[in-house]
């Protein structure tokens, strides 16, 4: 599927917001991702979907390597080939009325559409966003504009509460958790949460992104699972942490 770049601009150091116009009918749930073909690179790059409507979608990515750096130099008007609506995404139907949405760094973007979906489903989510420092904060206003309580933690204390996202959780926090972020953060949240279930979105290096190559397999309590196809969202009960 072809997409046209509407906007591709930095919103924090090394972090870019990419607005794409095109067919989003394949996107079914928050937490799904797109596989972008960046000109000059063989493998596609998986990027989570921050938000979408019928005419296009917003992705937020960090330029971490040659591929995403090349992507960051692409201009409005350029076209991108993408496979869309990949992965399972979050399930907002089974989470109680007061879920906790927890994101760290570039794990935060898919939680924006998730929070909107939770509100639309009549839930009252609370959001915790973790960053390293104040200058790296992005999407905070957008989350606040949704009218939900948002707590921010920074590792160096330059904004919000000093510490990690787990420091903004309650002791024996029984709220249902939706999380996305770096693996150490996910493990810490999973350990601290007193809720026996929850949905955690994982990340792996991928080739295909649609379940064919077995490049992103992780071990779970239910056997080997593909992060791209069986995930990226996994239930706490399945995780081996």
């Amino acid at each position, binding site marked *: 599927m072809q997409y046209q770049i509407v906007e591709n601009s930095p919103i924090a150091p090394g972090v870019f917001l990419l607005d794409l116009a095109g067919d989003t009918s394949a996107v079914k749930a928050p937490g799904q991702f797109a596989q972008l073909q960046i000109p000059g690179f063989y493998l596609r790059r998986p990027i989570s979907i921050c938000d979408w409507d019928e005419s296009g979608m917003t992705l937020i990515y960090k330029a971490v390597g040659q591929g995403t750096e090349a992507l960051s130099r692409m201009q409005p008007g350029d076209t991108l080939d993408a496979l869309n609506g990949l992965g399972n995404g979050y399930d907002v139907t089974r989470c109680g009325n007061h879920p906790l949405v927890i994101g760290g760094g570039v794990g935060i973007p898919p939680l924006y559409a998730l929070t909107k979906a939770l509100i639309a489903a009549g839930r009252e989510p609370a959001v915790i966003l973790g960053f390293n420092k104040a200058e790296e904060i992005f999407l905070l206003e957008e989350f606040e504009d949704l009218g939900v309580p948002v707590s921010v933690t920074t590792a160096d204390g330059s904004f919000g509460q000093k510490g990690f996202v787990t420091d903004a959780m309650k002791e024996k926090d029984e709220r249902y958790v939706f999380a996305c972020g770096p693996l150490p953060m996910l493990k810490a949240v999973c350990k601290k949460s007193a809720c026996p279930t929850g949905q955690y979105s994982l990340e792996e290096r991928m080739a*295909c992104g649609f*379940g064919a190559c077995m490049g992103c397999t992780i071990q779970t309590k239910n056997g080997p699972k593909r992060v791209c*196809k069986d995930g990226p969202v996994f239930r706490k009960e399945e995780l081996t942490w």
Partner: protein
Amino acid sequence: MVNLSVNLCGLTLDNPVIPASGCFGYGKEFAEYYDINILGSFSFKGTTRQQRFGNPTPRIAEAPAGMLNAVGLQNPGVEHVISHELPEMKRYFHKPVIANVSGFSVDEYVETCAMLDAEEQVGIIEVNISCPNVHGGGMAFGTSPDSAAAVTKAVKAAVKKPVFIKLSPNVTDIVSIARACEEAGADGLSLINTLLGMRVDLKTHKPILANGMGGLSGPAVLPVALRMVYQVYKAVKIPLMGMGGVSCARDVIEMMLCGAAAVQVGAANLVHPCACKEIIEQLPVEMEKLGIRSLQEIIGGAHA
């Protein structure tokens, strides 16, 4: 009207395009993108006697015009393949399929091949003696003519269906191994498997792949594959399935001119899920342009 069909050990394929093992799973994910019954056939995920988790991640790395993988033969084991994957496959693929088999001993190869040989969906057994990503098996058999012949002979004695031996390019003389397999009774040869390679993460100074090394595939390896198919075609009489970096209809024709009777497509499927569909649709167009009436007739055409 051009003719795309080819004959492979008595099996007539509608066209020579066959997704390669490890790049197509059991076909299910691709059936979501197109009707995979348009394929000549496909070679399903490499199967071993016991289930295997494979290697730790990262298993994948980017390469110039290609990719590295070190999946390590993740598969649910032959019994599960027979009890679950093949019956499920029957619902969306109605042609004879190619069963790709790996092993860690001659006995294991024989046992797994014999079990799959008994399945009526299986048209061809493809014996992988060339996987670069597992230790103590796989490629070890494919790197010497004697061990390649030993596996071939033992498997041939145990199965009825045509046996193709999948060869490694990571050897000094692929021709001597091809000849040894032919003498041991192989019905055909598949080549090439991936080329052993590696990448290093400049931030951590460590290999990107958890396994350290992995197999290079994609357009980068096409000329190597063409050369090896050309050399082997000259040396043996049995049919070849050529593969390595094939991405478009013109690559298929080039591979057949070098001597391939059928052509497998690997990495391209992972980047473009409709790659094989597009190749099959484009083949008649390219044949018309080039004045080719029948693909069967061009096999080995690059040879004097």
